[in-house]
């Protein structure tokens, strides 16, 4: 893991976190709550992938990284479906 890739990972994580917080303060939730929910969960999913790959070193273990990606994607999709359920039912 090079220092440069860690700096890039940190900058990306900060940018994605600002994106999440900005979304929470926007008026999008009143008009398109499902779109906002998908955006917020997609940002969280990407942040978690960066932490696993760059901070925890799974970038050096691509097979393990794919496995963790699949589980993480499943968890995020399930949480998104549960969030959207009261909006669509």
């Amino acid at each position: 893991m090079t220092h440069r890739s860690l700096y890039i990972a940190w900058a990306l994580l900060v940018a994605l976190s600002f994106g999440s917080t900005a979304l929470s303060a926007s008026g999008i939730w009143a008009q398109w709550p499902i779109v906002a929910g998908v955006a917020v969960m997609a940002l969280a999913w990407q942040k978690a992938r960066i932490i696993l790959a760059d901070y925890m070193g799974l970038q050096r273990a691509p097979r393990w990284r794919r496995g963790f990606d699949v589980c993480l994607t499943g968890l995020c999709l399930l949480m998104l479906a549960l969030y959207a359920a009261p909006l669509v039912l």
Partner: protein
Amino acid sequence: MTDKDALDALPGELLMWILIVSEVLVFGAGLIVFLSVRITDPEGFAEAQDMLDRTAAGINTIVLITSGFLAALANALRQGGARTKARFCLVAAALLGVVFLWIKGAEFASKAASGIVWDTHVFFNFYFMLTGFHAAHVAAGVVLLVLVAWRDHVDNIEDATAFWHMVDLIWVLLFPVIYLLQ
């Protein structure tokens, strides 16, 4: 690739990864139950969620991912033989952990001052349980980071920083579900 090769490819100790996966599963289950209960009372959950301080939680996210960055940097520095710089990064990461706990403590104190407690609404049941349990992990992580800054064997630092990244990972999943999904 044999099973042994596959396990060798995993960075750090296998036991630490088992702990990480277990913890993520426990918090993931907690978040799934939270969202399932929310289906029964979405308005009540939204009203309760509006009482949270999203800005403070957003700041805490930046604090924690910056702390994670310093921990990852410490690991890389120690593996490159830069012991003093690695120790400095570990102590700085631990201090940011303390900042996270201080902001979290202020958030809990403000809720208590407003009369919001565990059983005010079922939302707060989950809020205090999940964020409180996470804060306990942050506190344990701070102690670990300080310990490995002192006893700075490469393996010790690798394991402690992996634990710290797990705390980080859990927060980036917990933050949007508890604070942001409206």
